[in-house]
């Protein structure tokens, strides 16, 4: 890991994370052209840095919110039924309009990763898998690639694409429900359930939590079931994309302009929905898997664009899954030598950064920048000026989880 002492105000790369250290702060950056990861150190948070890099507030948990004129600040969560998770938002509102909103994180600061520290990498894996169940395969495969190296590439790709499909379909299910498209909502829930059963039959777990330990399981009907699910999904996606009611609710909701993406260091689906190609599949640790893959791009940056990106990505994932010929494969269990290993990989909503330090054959430190932290920040930027009824269409279009966002930081 190379690091230099440099004023963060003078760096133009994409900000990945800020980690407080004894005598200042560690800034982690990446370049989405060549995938290079850089660490810089600085003794303080420079004046004006939060304005220049608003995402820094997410890393420092330094969000501020003020009510204007007739407004009030209300806290929504952490047990509110609508959110479905232990998390909250602070919302400044005057009437129906949302003047400002900030994520209120920390309710799900779990001890899961602390349990991984001090263990041998293979024994630490079950805890890494449980950072966020929905992105279990993304986290496990990145941790595995860092601590052990890349092994059984076809199987890793297979598992990652299965995860992408069920996550994207679940997001669409939620959006259809928000828009009161209950029939589509139920179709998509049914497809998700069938997909999770398919995961269990092929990966050994509905969310893939065992997938590296069990290895690929033989399931003769996989391709037949996949074809049926693809047909089912495409029919529903087509109908949904033609529904005026659905489109009206999503179009122009929670719009992020290209400038918003660049200014706020947003990555993943919201970036690509605004026309900014930031995708770890092109530069990350698994880039060889994807070759000349060209990620779908949209330009309007609204909830509808994010929905359309998901539809196209699911189609591409189906193609990948149809063409993979899985062989029996057991991953190696001997970890790399002592050292610090870091990398970026794509999870369904956006990119994960992970750093793993191995000392005397044991995991001593894990640094994580989860995608959901960026997604909640992007949501807080896009939702300003929208009305309350837009809230679910906006939030659900990012596919973020509080358990994921609260995993941010250095675990040692």
């Amino acid at each position: 890991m190379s690091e230099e002492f440099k004023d963060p105000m003078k760096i133009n790369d994409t900000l990945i994370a800020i980690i407080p250290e004894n005598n200042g702060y560690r800034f982690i950056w990446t370049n989405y052209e060549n995938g290079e990861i850089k660490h810089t150190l600085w003794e303080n948070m420079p004046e004006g840095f939060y304005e220049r890099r608003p995402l820094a507030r997410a890393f420092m948990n330094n969000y501020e919110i003020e009510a204007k004129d007739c407004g009030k600040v209300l806290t929504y969560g952490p047990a509110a039924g609508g959110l479905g998770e232990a998390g909250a938002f602070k919302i400044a509102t005057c009437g129906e309009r949302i003047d400002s909103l900030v994520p209120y994180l920390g309710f799900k600061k779990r001890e899961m990763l602390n349990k991984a520290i001090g263990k041998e990498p293979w024994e630490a894996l079950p805890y890494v898998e449980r950072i966020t169940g929905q992105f279990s395969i993304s986290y496990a495969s990145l941790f595995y690639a860092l601590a052990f190296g890349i092994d059984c590439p076809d199987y890793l790709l297979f598992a990652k694409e299965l995860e992408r499909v069920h996550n994207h379909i679940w997001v669409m299910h939620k959006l259809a429900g928000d828009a009161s498209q209950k029939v589509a909502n139920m179709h998509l829930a049914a497809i998700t359930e069938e997909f999770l059963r398919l995961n269990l039959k092929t990966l050994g777990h509905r969310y893939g939590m065992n997938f590296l330990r069990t290895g690929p399981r033989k399931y003769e009907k996989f391709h037949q079931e996949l074809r049926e699910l693809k047909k089912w999904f495409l029919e529903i996606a087509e109908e949904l994309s033609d529904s005026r009611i659905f489109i009206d609710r999503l179009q122009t909701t929670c719009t992020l302009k290209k400038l918003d993406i660049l200014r706020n260091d947003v990555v993943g689906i919201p970036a690509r929905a605004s026309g900014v190609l930031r995708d770890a599949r092109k530069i990350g640790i698994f880039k060889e898997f994807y070759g000349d893959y060209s990620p779908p791009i949209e330009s309007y940056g609204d909830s509808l664009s994010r929905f359309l990106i998901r539809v196209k990505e699911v189609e591409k994932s189906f193609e990948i899954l149809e063409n993979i010929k899985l062989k029996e494969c057991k991953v190696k269990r001997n970890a790399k030598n002592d050292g610090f290993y870091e990398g970026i990989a794509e999870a369904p909503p956006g990119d994960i950064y992970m750093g793993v330090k191995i000392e005397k054959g044991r995991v001593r430190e894990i640094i994580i920048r989860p995608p959901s932290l960026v997604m909640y920040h992007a949501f807080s930027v896009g939702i300003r000026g929208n009305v309350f009824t837009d809230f679910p269409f906006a939030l659900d279009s990012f596919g973020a989880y509080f358990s994921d966002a609260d995993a941010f930081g250095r675990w040692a």
Partner: protein
Amino acid sequence: MMWLAKGLKRGIITTKFPKEEDKSIPKSLYDKDCEFFCFNSCMNGCEERDDEIEVRRKIPFNKSVHIFVLDVGSCSSCNREISLLNSPQYDMHRLGFFFTPVPRHADILLVIGEPTERMIPVLKEAYEQMPEPKLVMTAGACAGEEIEKILSVDARVSGCPPQPIAMLKVLLMLTGRWNP
């Protein structure tokens, strides 16, 4: 209209459970040494098993039953499995179960996750807000011993996460509507 027609063409996909056992639902893979609160992580080899269930107290509600789900620190997969109880494959409404967004309307408190420091007071308050009679159920390996230290638990289901069918079984047993 097309969706409705396609749905009808597809036929009924809802499980016949509890009228009869549904063998089409694949079983979970568990570590051979797995006890109730452990992850099904297959560290020591796997075996196919149903998620385990323990019901300690029942209340035979003669009405629709409302469930308040409280996540106190899950990895979010239990949340998805609970949401899927509404999916056409399980359709818990046909059995008289409904989610409620507020504890004051709830008959059952369904707790998931290992409680974080900030969620413990929320959990206690949610329980206090519920009207009598009330039941507490925990789901998943994380919501284990730590919850039992805070509340008296009436039923629990193992799994990481437990499958929707296992949760449906617990709900039916808790309310005296099904006995294995």
